[in-house]
């Protein structure tokens, strides 16, 4: 299934068609960005159902506001801004990420899927699990700006320039957020050691 998005059509063309009332063109954009949108939401919520709802809500908002998109930035940075703002609102509502619960769920499913490696000892696995858990907790505890910058760079590969556009801030500020986030994550591991 190509999700209604022929690869030779650029985002700008699909947006222009949407602005002329072609809903199918927007479906093309959904097909193109749904996986990344879902993963970003999942990085913020750590809950599959919430991530699905939030990312779909972001698409609906983008669709309703498509006539306000002026093309000064790429479609995906404009869309990510809507999505990230929704995720941050979700955080404000929830006050705290249910990271540990979600992480535990994730680890459970990972354990079920993974074939045991005969070369790795039980101790090594336990340490790796503990490191992941610590990092997850530390990531969840980061201030929202640092977490946003880190997640968009580390998990989704956006450039500093793109993150600055999504977060509506300067590249210098994003660099500082990213550095502080990495420093905080390192610190969480130092406490583990």
């Amino acid at each position, binding site marked *: 299934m190509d999700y*209604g998005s022929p690869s030779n059509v650029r985002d700008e063309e699909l947006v222009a068609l949407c602005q002329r*009332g072609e809903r199918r063109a927007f479906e093309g954009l959904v097909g193109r960005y749904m996986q990344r949108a879902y993963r970003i939401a999942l990085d913020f919520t750590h809950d599959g159902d919430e991530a699905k709802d939030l990312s779909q809500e972001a698409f609906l908002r983008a669709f309703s506001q498509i006539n306000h998109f002026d093309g000064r930035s790429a479609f995906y940075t404009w869309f990510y801004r809507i999505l990230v703002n929704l995720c941050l609102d979700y955080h404000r509502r929830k006050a705290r990420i249910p990271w540990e619960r979600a992480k535990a769920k994730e680890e459970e499913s990972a354990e079920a899927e993974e074939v045991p490696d005969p070369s790795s000892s039980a101790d090594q696995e336990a340490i790796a699990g503990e490191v992941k858990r610590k990092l997850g907790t530390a990531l969840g505890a980061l201030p929202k700006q640092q977490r946003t910058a880190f997640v968009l760079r580390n998990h989704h590969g956006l450039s500093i320039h793109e993150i600055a556009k999504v977060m509506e801030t300067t590249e210098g500020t994003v660099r500082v957020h990213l550095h502080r986030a990495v420093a905080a994550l390192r610190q969480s591991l130092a406490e583990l050691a």
Partner: protein
Amino acid sequence: MTQNRKGLRSACKEFEEDLVLYYYGEWGGAELARVEGHLKECVACEQFLEDLRAFLPLTAGPKEQPKTFWDSYFKEMQEKLEVFENRRPWWKRLLPVFQPWAVPVLGAALVVIIALSLTFTKSMRLKSRSSSETLPAEVQTVANNMDFFQSLDLLESIDLLEALDGAHATHDGARKL
């Protein structure tokens, strides 16, 4: 090698942020050369970078979802978009018809229509006012007959002159007698 008491190694303070950005491939040109030059000389920073390479991938997000998940996600999204579009009021659905170029064109056309209608209504009003300001028929007739009255005046003047002339003649005859 600089190692902190808890096992993680520290980088040179002034290079720490640069190394994070170097890890993410954000540097190019002179900055990249500067960081790489420093890494060749500094074991602590090289090991700090190794730490980043070891632990940052562990923070990465969850695994791929199966294709069936995306199929159902996309189908749901299509349905939601359709419902959303049908719920929009009719005038909002017409909005896309008004393209950005059409707004100034329609605006200019509207201004021209207003200007023309103002011009025409003004001239019609003037016309109707001028027709309402015409003189009454009697006055108009009198005005047309002004020459007649002027000629009557002239006749009266001639009569007067003749009378005067007759009076002079009588006066002269009397004096001769």
